[in-house]
């Protein structure tokens, strides 16, 4: 019951935040001294045509009226029609989002696994060689420009070693089943193992590149948190019980140490989602990141706004989930 009301309250906050984001993105985009119509029509188009089209799209109305229209649309779940693709923004998002989600989930898994393992190893072997190696390896992830690392890995694993396929979501002549739009999930649903294998092989590099960057932050928190937990009294109790080192670490320390890590993972997920742009470009990944960035370059208002709101929504939702997870993980949070 309490949990439910908590969730409701959080959802309400989320709504508030979304409203704020909506307002902000609207005004920021309008402040930009650029002309979407001119951009879409191209550099050659004469000014009369530009004006005509601007009028058609209602972009010559006073800004407050535009804002009212825009809010009206949002309230009705309508983000409008993309100036660029000439399709409802919702359709575009539906088309591009699953790819990004799939990538982000794969990356977050990589982040979690590597981050936690590195963190534990570092903490347990604190200040020993293995600690140094793990930390440096993790930090290297944040140290390299994504596009640079992406190209490097492609060159290595695809071009030179030929272990992994090149860019794209799946091989060209493979036609994966379509339910959710996430190829891996769809293949699992359909039981199409060959395609699944193909899709997974395509997923490895981009997910690694994207996830590697946040691995360091998770590993860092994990290490600190583990060290913290290991110095606590109840660990001494466990040792005094005569439990072996392994049990002390994995049974007694781990769950406690994970609690603060969960929050970081929630935040990482957000940055993974929005940081996917570069990875998507390097790996020809048809995701929503590229869509939004392009929308922004063209100043395709509806697409920018819709995409941003959508991101904000997914991010907030992810964090809500994390917070609930938090409650599940930490009995002290129970009511």
């Amino acid at each position: 019951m309490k949990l439910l009301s908590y969730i409701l309250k959080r959802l309400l906050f989320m709504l508030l935040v979304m409203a704020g984001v909506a307002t902000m993105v609207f005004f920021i985009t309008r402040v930009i001294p650029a002309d979407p119509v001119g951009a879409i029509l191209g550099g050659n188009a004469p000014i009369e045509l530009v004006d005509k089209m601007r009028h058609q799209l209602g972009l010559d109305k006073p800004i407050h009226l535009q804002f009212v229209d825009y809010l009206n649309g949002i309230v009705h779940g309508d983000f409008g029609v993309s100036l660029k693709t000439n399709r409802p923004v919702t359709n575009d998002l539906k088309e591009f989002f699953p790819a990004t989600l799939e990538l982000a989930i794969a990356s977050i898994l990589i982040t979690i696994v590597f981050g936690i393992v590195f963190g534990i190893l570092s903490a347990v072997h604190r200040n020993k060689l293995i600690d140094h190696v793990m930390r440096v390896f993790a930090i290297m992830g944040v140290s390299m420009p994504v596009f640079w690392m992406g190209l490097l890995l492609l060159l290595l694993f695809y071009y030179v070693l030929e272990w992994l396929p090149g860019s794209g979501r799946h091989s060209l002549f493979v036609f994966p089943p379509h339910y959710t739009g996430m190829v891996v999930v769809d293949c699992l649903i359909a039981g199409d193992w060959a395609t699944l294998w193909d899709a997974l092989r395509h997923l490895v590099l981009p997910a690694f590149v994207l996830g590697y960057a946040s691995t360091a932050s998770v590993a860092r928190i994990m290490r600190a948190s583990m060290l913290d937990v290991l110095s606590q009294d109840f660990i001494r109790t466990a040792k005094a019980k005569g439990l072996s080192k392994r049990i002390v670490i994995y049974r007694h320390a781990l769950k406690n140490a994970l609690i603060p890590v969960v929050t970081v993972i929630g935040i990482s997920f957000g940055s993974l989602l929005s940081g996917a742009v570069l990875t998507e470009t390097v790996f020809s990944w048809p995701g929503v990141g590229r869509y939004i960035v392009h929308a922004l370059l063209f100043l395709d208002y509806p697409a920018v706004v819709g995409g941003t709101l959508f991101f904000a929504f997914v991010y907030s939702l992810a964090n809500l989930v994390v917070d609930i997870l938090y409650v599940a993980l930490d009995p002290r949070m129970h009511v």
Partner: protein
Amino acid sequence: MAEVQVQSRISRFTLFLEHSKPILEDLKHTLYLWKRTPLALIGTLMIAGFLLMAIFAPLLATHDPLAHGEHLLPPSSTHFFGTDQYGRDIFSRVMYGARVEVWIIFIVSVVSVGIGLLVGIPSGYFGGAVDQVLMRITDMFLAFPQLVLAMAFTAALGPNLTNTILAIGLVDWTVFARLARAETIKIKGQPYIEAIQSLGAGKLRIMLLHVLPMAISPVIVQLTLRMGTIILTAAGLGFLGLGAQPPTPEWGAIVSDGRSYFIQHWWITTFPGMAIGVVVLGFNLLGDGIRDILDPRIRR
């Protein structure tokens, strides 16, 4: 009379020096811990090297970083890192680039830490409605896809390096706000704050003179840790065509501009890429180190 005062001041200062032994000891302690964490030491060296590079760029550079010459020369003894697509000496550009990075770091730090503290401390200190409002605003910025927001700000402010950096600062402050808030809440509950309150200090005085000095150090640590992200965000914006305006030798821009030469002319991207990597690594190691050293459990 005045002389007496001066005298007493001087004697007080000597007294201060005499008795600042504990402070020195503290320093010694810090140094000791520093030495015991080799990674922090390495990080420090990296950053020191980076700063020296920025300071002495004109001395270190072998060429004019903007002068065009024979292009796409591989590394050699005249061009340590080769030349780029216009025939500019990459080594010299990397040296001068250090200055740009320092500038980036400086502005972002000031802007984002400044906003972060400005939002975080009152939020944590007052709590209640103030906290709710400020935190919802922070949430809003957090929920905003960072790159999009940075791009939008950059576009709105006009795309040049300083504006790009400003934009990153405007986007990046949320972390610091949250951290400052959490710290403030922690500090607020400490008896020494209550003691100061009971002495009759006003809220502003408490926040400024007592909470701020305590809240700032974790924020600074976090800042060093985020330095890498900041530099890389700048590079990412460069990749998307925003960011430093040519011919500014910004490392991220060099890498992203050179990426189409990646396969044939590896040196264009590799050296500046490595420079970024080393500095980011340095900052991270340093930040990790400082954090470890500030950790009371170790400090004991």
